[in-house]
C-alpha cells in the first residue's frame, strides 16, 4: 500500500445493492432484514462482528411488552423518553420506537435471545432510570427486558447467529475510509481496505448504511470500547454533511473509578444506591421521588456536585460509592453476575461485601447524522432539509432523534433493533421500486482515496499516540459534565491546533498486513471530526438542557433552544432545526419543567 493505488481499475470494485458499514447491533439488524430480501447485501466491519461495542451493553432493552406489568403502555414509555430527552427528542420517532418496540423485541426472542424469565415464563423486566407508569403519575415502572446483565452480549451474538443462518455476506476486518460522493451529491459507496491483506477497494452500493456506533474515545475517560472512534460520522463530516445535537454526550453515572468500565444502571434498578463519603444516600436530596433512578444526566450531575463539595470518597475524594451488598449474594449472583466479575477485576472489590467506587464517565453520543425513521440521512441547503440519496444511518451513529438531550437507560438497544429493522425494510422497498444512485466518476473515487493516499505517502509528521492523547485530554478538560463558555473557547482553539497535527500524521510503518497503526491514524482523524463538531456545538448552545450543563447558562431556554442544533462542518457553524412535535397517534407531549 506504499504506492497510490489506482482504484478506478475494474478489479478493485466490489458492487452491492446495499452496503452496511458496521457490524454491531444496528448494522446486523439492518443486514438481517436485507438478507431475507434477496438483495445483494454486505456488512463491512473493522472487527469480527461479535467484537462490536453492542456486546458491552449490560442492563437491558427497554420496551413496554407488558410482562412485569400487564397494564404497561407504550405511551407511558413514550412519555418517559420525551421527558428524558428534555423535550428535544423527535416525537414522531419516539412514538415509532415505543410502539414498534414490542414486535422488535419478540422477534429477538424468536431468534433465540436467551432472555431471563419470570416464573410465568415471560421475559424478565427490571426497573431502570427515568421510567414511570401513567405518564409520570403512577410511580416507578419496570420496563427493561434483560438477559441477566449481559443483554448486549446476548443480543449481538443472537443477531450474528441469525445473520449466519440467513447467509449474510460479511467483509470482516475491513476498514471504511471515506464516502464516495458523485457530482449530484449522492453517496455511491465507500473506499475501504482489508486490514489483513491491505487490498483497497471501492465498495459500490445503491444504498450505504452507516452503522458505525459512537465515538466515546474522544474523551480520556469513557465506558466505550477502544474501537468507538466515530468512523461513520468522520466520513459524513468530511463529505460536508451536517451532524445534529453533537453537544449532547451522556456521562453514565456509574463507570468504575480509574478503569472506566460500565456498571449497569440495572444495579440501581435492582435496589442498589449511591452513597457519599458520609455514607449518605445523597440522591434523596437531588431527586426526592425517583432518587437513584432519576435521569442519567441528573444523577451524574448530582455525583459531581457531591465530589465538588468535598463529600467524595477515597483518598482523593474523587468518586462516590455504589452500594449493592444489602441485596444479598443470591440476587447479585443471579441478576448481576457480570457486574460482580467486572468489579473484582477492575475495582478489586466484591460487591457482595463492599461498595463499588464509581464516577460519571462518558458513555453515549446522543447526536449523530440526522435521519428520519427510515434511516435516510438529511442534509441542509439554504435552510431546507433534503435527503441525501444513497446515504442511511442507524444506531448510535445516527440522530433520528429518539434520545434528544439525554438518553434513557435501555433505550439504546431498542433504538438499534427498531431502526435497523426499519432501515432494512425501507431500503428493500426503495431498491425494488427502482430507486438508486448514479455512478461516481473516476475523479469522485480518487477524491475519496485522498486521505488514505496522503497518510500512506507521509514522510514526516506527528505521532498518532501523541495527538490522540492531546485530543482526549482537551475534550475531557473542557467538555465534561459541567461546561463553561470561556473554557470551551479555549478548547476549541486547542482543537484547531490538534486538527493541524491530525491532518499531518506520520505513518512510519507502511507495511500492508494487519497494520494497526494505519487503522489508528485513520481513526484518530475521525475522532477529531467528532470532537470538533462536539466542541463547537457545545460552545454555541448557550443554555443547559439534558446532558449539556453549563455553569454560565444554568437554565433551560425554551424560547431560543427548544430545537436541534445542526453543525455545518464546512462553515464550522451551528444552525438550528425544528424538533418534531407531531406524533401520529397520540397528542404531543408539551415541554414541562423536568424533575424526578
Amino acid at each position, binding site marked *: 500500500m506504499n504506492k497510490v493505488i489506482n482504484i478506478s481499475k475494474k478489479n478493485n470494485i466490489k458492487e452491492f445493492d446495499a452496503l452496511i458499514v458496521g457490524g454491531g447491533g444496528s448494522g446486523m439488524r439492518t443486514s438481517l432484514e436485507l438478507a431475507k430480501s434477496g438483495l445483494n447485501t454486505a456488512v463491512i466491519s473493522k472487527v469480527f462482528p461479535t467484537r462490536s461495542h453492542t456486546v458491552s451493553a449490560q442492563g437491558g432493552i427497554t420496551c413496554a411488552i407488558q410482562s412485569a406489568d400487564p397494564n404497561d403502555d407504550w405511551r407511558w414509555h413514550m412519555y418517559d423518553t420525551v421527558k428524558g430527552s428534555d423535550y428535544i427528542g423527535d416525537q414522531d420517532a419516539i412514538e415509532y420506537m415505543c410502539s414498534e418496540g414490542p414486535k422488535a423485541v419478540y422477534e429477538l426472542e424468536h431468534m433465540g435471545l436467551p*432472555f431471563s*424469565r419470570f416464573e410465568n415464563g415471560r421475559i424478565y423486566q427490571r426497573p431502570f432510570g427515568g421510567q414511570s407508569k401513567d405518564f409520570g403519575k403512577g410511580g416507578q415502572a419496570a420496563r427493561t427486558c434483560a438477559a441477566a446483565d449481559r443483554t448486549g452480549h446476548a443480543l449481538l451474538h443472537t443477531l450474528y*447467529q441469525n445473520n449466519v443462518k440467513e447467509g449474510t455476506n460479511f467483509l470482516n476486518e475491513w476498514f471504511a475510509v471515506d464516502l464516495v460522493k458523485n457530482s449530484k451529491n449522492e453517496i455511491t459507496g465507500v473506499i475501504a481496505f482489508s486490514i489483513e491483506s491491505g487490498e483497497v477497494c471501492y465498495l459500490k452500493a445503491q444504498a450505504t448504511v452507516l452503522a458505525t456506533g459512537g465515538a466515546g474515545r474522544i474523551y480520556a475517560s469513557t465506558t466505550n470500547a477502544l474501537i468507538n472512534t466515530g468512523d461513520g460520522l468522520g466520513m459524513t463530516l468530511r463529505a460536508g454533511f451536517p451532524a445534529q445535537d453533537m453537544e449532547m454526550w451522556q456521562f453514565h453515572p456509574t463507570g468504575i473509578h480509574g478503569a472506566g468500565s460500565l456498571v449497569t444502571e440495572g444495579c440501581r434498578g435492582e435496589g442498589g444506591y449511591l452513597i457519599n463519603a458520609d455514607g449518605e444516600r445523597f440522591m434523596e436530596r437531588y431527586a426526592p421521588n425517583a432518587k437513584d433512578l432519576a435521569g442519567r444526566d441528573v444523577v451524574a450531575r448530582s455525583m459531581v456536585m457531591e465530589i465538588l463539595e468535598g463529600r467524595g470518597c477515597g483518598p482523593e475524594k474523587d468518586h462516590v460509592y455504589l452500594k449493592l451488598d444489602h441485596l444479598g449474594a443470591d440476587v447479585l449472583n443471579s441478576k448481576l453476575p457480570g457486574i460482580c466479575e467486572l468489579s473484582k477485576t477492575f475495582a478489586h472489590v466484591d460487591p457482595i461485601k463492599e461498595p463499588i467506587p464509581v464516577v460519571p464517565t462518558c458513555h453515549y453520543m446522543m447526536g449523530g447524522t440526522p435521519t428520519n425513521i427510515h434511516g435516510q440521512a438529511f442534509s441542509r441547503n439554504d435552510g431546507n432539509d433534503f435527503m441525501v440519496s444513497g446515504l442511511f444511518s442507524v444506531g448510535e451513529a445516527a440522530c433520528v432523534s429518539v434520545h434528544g438531550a439525554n438518553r434513557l437507560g435501555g433505550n439504546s438497544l431498542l433504538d438499534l433493533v427498531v431502526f435497523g429493522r426499519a432501515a432494512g425494510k425501507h431500503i428493500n422497498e426503495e431498491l425494488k421500486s427502482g430507486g438508486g444512485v448514479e455512478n461516481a466518476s473516476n475523479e469522485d473515487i480518487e477524491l475519496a482515496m485522498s486521505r488514505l493516499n496522503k497518510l500512506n505517502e507521509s514522510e514526516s509528521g506527528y505521532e498518532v499516540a501523541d495527538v490522540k492523547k492531546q485530543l482526549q485530554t482537551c475534550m475531557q478538560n473542557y467538555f465534561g459534565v459541567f461546561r463553561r463558555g470561556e473554557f470551551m473557547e479555549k478548547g476549541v482553539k486547542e482543537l484547531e491546533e490538534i486538527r493541524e497535527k491530525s491532518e499531518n500524521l506520520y505513518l512510519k510503518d507502511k507495511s500492508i498486513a494487519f497494520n*494497526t497503526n494505519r487503522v489508528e491514524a485513520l481513526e484518530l482523524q475521525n475522532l477529531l471530526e467528532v470532537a470538533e463538531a462536539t466542541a463547537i456545538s457545545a460552545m454555541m448552545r448557550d443554555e443547559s438542557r439534558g446532558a449539556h450543563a453549563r455553569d454560565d447558562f444554568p437554565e433551560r431556554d425554551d424560547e431560543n433552544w427548544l430545537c436541534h442544533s445542526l453543525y455545518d462542518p464546512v462553515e464550522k457553524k451551528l444552525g438550528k432545526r425544528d424538533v418534531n412535535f407531531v406524533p401520529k397517534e397520540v397528542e404531543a407531549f408539551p415541554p414541562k419543567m423536568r424533575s424526578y
Partner: protein
Amino acid sequence: MELSVSLYRYNPEQDKFPYMKNYKVKKPEKDIMVLDLLNMLKEDDATISYRRSCREGVCGSDGMNINGKNGLACITPLSEVLKGNKLELRPLPGLPVIRDLIVDMTQFYEQYEKIKPFLQSDSEPPEQERLQSPQDRDKLDGLYECILCACCSTSCPSFWWNPDKFVGPAALLQAYRFLADTRDTKKQERLEELGDPFSVYRCHGIMNCVNVCPKGLNPNKAIGEIKSMLLTGSKEDKIKVVGLE
C-alpha cells in the same frame, strides 16, 4: 524495577521467520493489565500488532498466550502472570499467524458455523415471546456467555491435530447451548451431525479448555452432556442412539 517482555514478532513482508523480541519496560507502580502493557509498548513501537476492542473481557478480541497460558490480555493483571520479572507473549497456538499476536481465526469460525449456532424451531413463533420457565432458562447459564475468544480451542491438543474435523470446545459449548434450549426443536438433527468419530469424540477430556476459559465456562462438561445425549438419547425427545453405530 524493570520488566523484561519477550514478544512474538512476525511481519510477513519483512520476516522470513517469526522471532522473539525483547523489550525492557519500567515496572508500573500500579498493577496493570497485560493489554495496558501492550498499549504502552505500542506507543514506543507502533509496529506491534494485536487485536483489541472492549478492554473489559466481553468482546473476545485479545486472546493470546501469556507466559504459556491462553487468556485475555485485557483482564489478566500482571501480578497474576509475571514469572519473576519476565513476561512472554505469543499468539494463540495452533492457528496460522497473520502478524505478531494476530492469528487467522477462519478455522475456528468455520467450526462455529458448522454447529448451526442459531435457534431452530418447527413451530411458528407466537405473537408474543415463546415462554420458557426460569428453571429451563437456567440451563443456558454457563453456555450462552461464550465470547468466541478461542482461548479454549487453541489450547486443545485435539483441535491442534484436527482443526478441520474436530469441532473444538468453543463450538461444542455452543452446540450444547442449543441442545439445552427448550425452545429449539432440532435436537435429533443436531445430534446426528455430531455423531461422527471426529466432531465430538476427539475430545479426550484433557480439560485445557476449562483451565483457560477467561469467562469461567466449562466446555468439557458440555461435551460430556453431548456425548451422553449421543449415547442414550435425550429422554424427553426419545432420541435414538446416534453415532458409534
